[in-house]
């Protein structure tokens, strides 16, 4: 592992100055009153909200929650899928100097309960009946949340719970309050300061309980400015507000950057319609997790396979050539020979139409983040004419650490640190950062804060190094660096990601700490493998059945062989088990952002792991599964151990 100790990269960062979310919002409303701030599809039609109207709604909402008794320092839970009103509520909290606390819509009661133990949650803003029910359950369980404001009235007509009120009546109360107190409007705009909270996020909780992370307005606005200075986006981008609201990436783009740089945020109708809505919107900036890009790639390929012979031939003719050209470019062997004519014709008859199908026609800034992306996927989009770039960020640094530039891309790096973000590498190989966008410490958790922040440097928790030209390489979590019995050092996550580059592997857990050799447990991708089985006439009755088919094992083995070729001998994977069920956040095996909870997995599949090293050829397992209703059942299976 090449280490480049203590080399610092620093550029003069832009200063967020005295700006606050409220002031920037009002500036947009004054100077760009009739530009579109938000678009939301409702009853099949995109309804537009101008900056002037949006600012007014945020003000009324702030006054409305004030009337409900929300005071500075209080917390308000924001629960639901992306909705304009929920974004409005989040933005309004920053005017009240209160904590907007977004939660994943799929969060269980236990997960939500933790929020209440942490901060003074006085109100909730919920999307619909489902989410209101959760808050009411929590209230029954003894938490004190005085008011619950809901967006969608559906099914709530007959509820008779104290403090339950509709968005409309909250807004009306706010408007009344604004009219009655002439000075209130000015106070809402001027009172909040850059050091006041913008949002209350949570660490993903791969180890233990999620920690509270309060990002100040200065943090998030600096983050957005740094990203802008680094070429991530420009003024007036067209974006899709579809990422989970509880994820920092969504807040950083759809609230902070959107207000600071006047984006138009398009909120899809429902989670299920995102693809179609995206086609209608054709965003200019799009950030998605690697698995979403993978998924889109699979959809394109499956679609082409089911197409007519002529279309298929045209697709392969142009696509294969373009992919080859990109591959050569990436490996540095000169310019691709896919000349401009091929590119031009291909764009007209193949690339353009495909991009149109997926709403990628106007896409200028395509990002992927969260984890590494596979080479095949990366090259495919480049060949299609989409300059996909990696973005490296974390919640503690308001989502923006480093990005790749469109021109110079090296797949194994995440690009250069952004202007305004200082990076250095600690003795033990950990990436350290200093920036205005770095938070002040975990909420009411001195011990964890002291550990994360040392002399003004944020310990990212990631192991990595800086290359000669300033590009940052991220290897994986420092806490995950482990050693085999022979002392070989490795990051399981690094290997797992490379396994997951195969479209057939959805999740993987590499085992080997303190062992002689490395092995892995994988979960096949039901959709991709299912489709493959269908095309190739492999019969199966269920996920569990499919996972154990010998043909599928061969498919998976290919991925292992590819990884083994790319790593040193000591880190090669020797055996694997294809598990009978996917990892599920409800079972605690992965987080809601689909990060592996190693401890839980290693405990739960202890029996399988032992079998991987005991020399047997199969293992009988009994697993407890949790259904959506909260009931549990057991599944029994015999899993086969495969050699690579």
């Amino acid at each position, binding site marked *: 592992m090449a280490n480049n100790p203590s080399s610092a990269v620093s550029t003069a960062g832009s200063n967020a100055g005295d700006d606050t979310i409220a002031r920037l919002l009002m500036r947009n409303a004054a100077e760009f009153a009739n530009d579109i701030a938000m678009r939301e599809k409702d009853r*099949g039609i995109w309804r537009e909200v101008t900056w002037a109207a949006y600012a007014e709604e945020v003000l009324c909402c702030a006054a409305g929650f004030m009337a409900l008794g929300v005071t500075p320092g209080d917390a308000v839970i924001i629960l639901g899928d992306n909705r304009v009103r929920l974004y409005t509520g989040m933005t309004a909290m920053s005017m009240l100097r209160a904590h907007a606390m977004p939660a994943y819509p799929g969060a269980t009661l236990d997960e939500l309960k933790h929020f209440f133990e942490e901060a003074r949650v006085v109100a909730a803003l919920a999307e619909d009946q489902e989410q209101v029910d959760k808050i009411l359950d929590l209230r029954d369980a003894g938490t004190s949340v005085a008011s619950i404001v809901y967006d969608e009235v*559906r099914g709530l007509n007959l509820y008779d719970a104290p403090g339950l009120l509709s968005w409309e009546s909250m807004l009306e109360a706010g408007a009344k309050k604004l009219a009655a107190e002439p000075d209130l409007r000015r106070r809402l705009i001027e009172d909040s300061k850059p050091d006041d909270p913008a949002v209350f996020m949570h660490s993903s909780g791969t180890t233990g309980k999620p920690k509270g992370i309060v990002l100040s307005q200065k943090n998030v606005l600096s983050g957005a400015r740094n990203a802008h200075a680094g070429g991530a986006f420009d003024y007036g981008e067209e974006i899709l507000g579809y990422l989970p609201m509880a994820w920092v990436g969504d807040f950083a783009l759809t609230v902070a950057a959107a207000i600071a740089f006047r984006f138009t945020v398009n909120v899809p109708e*429902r989670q299920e319609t995102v693809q*179609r809505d995206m086609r209608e919107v054709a965003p200019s900036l799009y950030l998605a997790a690697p698995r979403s890009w993978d998924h889109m790639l699979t959809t394109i390929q499956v679609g082409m396979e089911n197409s007519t012979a002529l279309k298929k031939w045209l697709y392969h003719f142009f696509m294969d050539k373009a992919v080859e050209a990109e591959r050569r470019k990436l490996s540095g062997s000169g310019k691709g020979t896919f000349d401009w004519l091929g590119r031009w014709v291909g764009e007209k008859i193949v690339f353009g139409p495909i991009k149109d199908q997926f709403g990628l026609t106007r896409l200028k800034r395509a990002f992927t983040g969260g984890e590494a992306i596979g080479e095949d996927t990366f090259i495919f989009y480049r060949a299609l004419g989409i300059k996909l770039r990696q973005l490296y960020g974390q919640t503690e640094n308001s989502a923006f650490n480093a990005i790749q530039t469109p021109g110079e891309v090296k797949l194994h790096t995440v690009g250069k640190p952004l202007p305004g973000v200082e990076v250095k590498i600690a003795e033990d190989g950990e990436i350290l950062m200093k920036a205005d966008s770095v938070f002040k410490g975990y909420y009411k958790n001195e011990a964890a804060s002291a550990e994360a922040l040392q002399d003004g440097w944020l310990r990212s928790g990631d192991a990595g190094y800086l290359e000669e030209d300033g590009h940052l390489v991220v290897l994986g979590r420092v806490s995950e660096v482990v050693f085999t019995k022979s002392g070989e050092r490795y990051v399981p996550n690094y290997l797992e990601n490379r396994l997951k580059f195969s479209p057939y592997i959805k999740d993987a857990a590499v085992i080997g700490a303190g062992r002689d050799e490395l092995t892995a447990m994988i979960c096949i991708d039901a959709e991709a493998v299912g489709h493959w089985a269908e095309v190739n006439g492999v019969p199966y009755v269920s996920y569990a059945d499919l996972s154990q088919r010998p043909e599928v094992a061969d498919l998976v083995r290919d991925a292992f062989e590819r990884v083994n070729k790319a790593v040193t001998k000591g880190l090669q994977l020797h055996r694997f088990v294809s598990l009978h069920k996917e990892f599920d956040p409800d079972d605690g095996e992965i987080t809601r952002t689909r990060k592996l909870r190693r401890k839980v997995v290693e405990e739960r599949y202890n029996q399988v792991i032992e079998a991987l090293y005991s020399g047997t050829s199969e293992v009988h397992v009994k697993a407890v599964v949790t259904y959506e209703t909260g009931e549990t059942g057991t599944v029994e299976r015999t899993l086969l151990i495969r050699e690579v």
Partner: protein
Amino acid sequence: MKGPETSGDGQEPVLECLGIERRFGGLVAVSGVDLRLEKGEIFGLVGPNGSGKTTLTNAITGFYPPQEGKILLGGKDITGTAPHKVAGLGVARTFQNLALFNGMSVLDNILLGRHIHMNPGVIRTALYWWMARPEEIANRDVVEEVIDFLQLESIRHELVDGIPIGLKKRVELARALVAEPHLLILDEPMAGMNQEEKEYMARFILDARAERGVSVLLIEHHMDVIIGICDRMLALNYGEMIASGIPREVIQNPRVIEAYIGGAHGE
């Protein structure tokens, strides 16, 4: 949940059938059936295959006018009225064997349910921008509201041919609801559905009553559904009424048990 309004409070029942009889040649499909459906009620109609449930429905909606008996809709005699006129009187139905238009999108299929509220014509259509278009927009708005109500947004533009049966049934319900009926007749809306889809459908029926104020005549095989959501019910066998009343009591009735389980053989 709103309970049923008891009869005899002076309000006209939504639907009243008196001594209905319908024969096909020599075969008596239904005979002597009385039925009274109050406003806001979900009324179950059960019976084994061939017991006359669908025939009774067809008699009400005018497909097969009864040879004997009277059908009153909101107190008005509609016996023998043609089906399209019955639809205009605020009755909408779904079909046991689905009657969607293949080759058309979900949206277009649902829009068809608005036909009774549309007023097309040569002149109106020729002056599309001034006359037909505003009407189209207004109707689309109603349709979108129902699409939202039944959560069909994600398949709005799909062809109905390609969607699963559970969703097809939901599209049919949507098409019936956009007609803004007072009385909704659902002919086995849960046939061929799994437990989850059944629960969804039951929820939608209850919500349709609570939020849209429809009264429902529900023909159903699944006893659990009838017991779960109906206020009152009527059981038929060989075209005759064998029991009526509150579901829990009706299913205890020995004649109903016999018709359903056939326990009386050889006794």
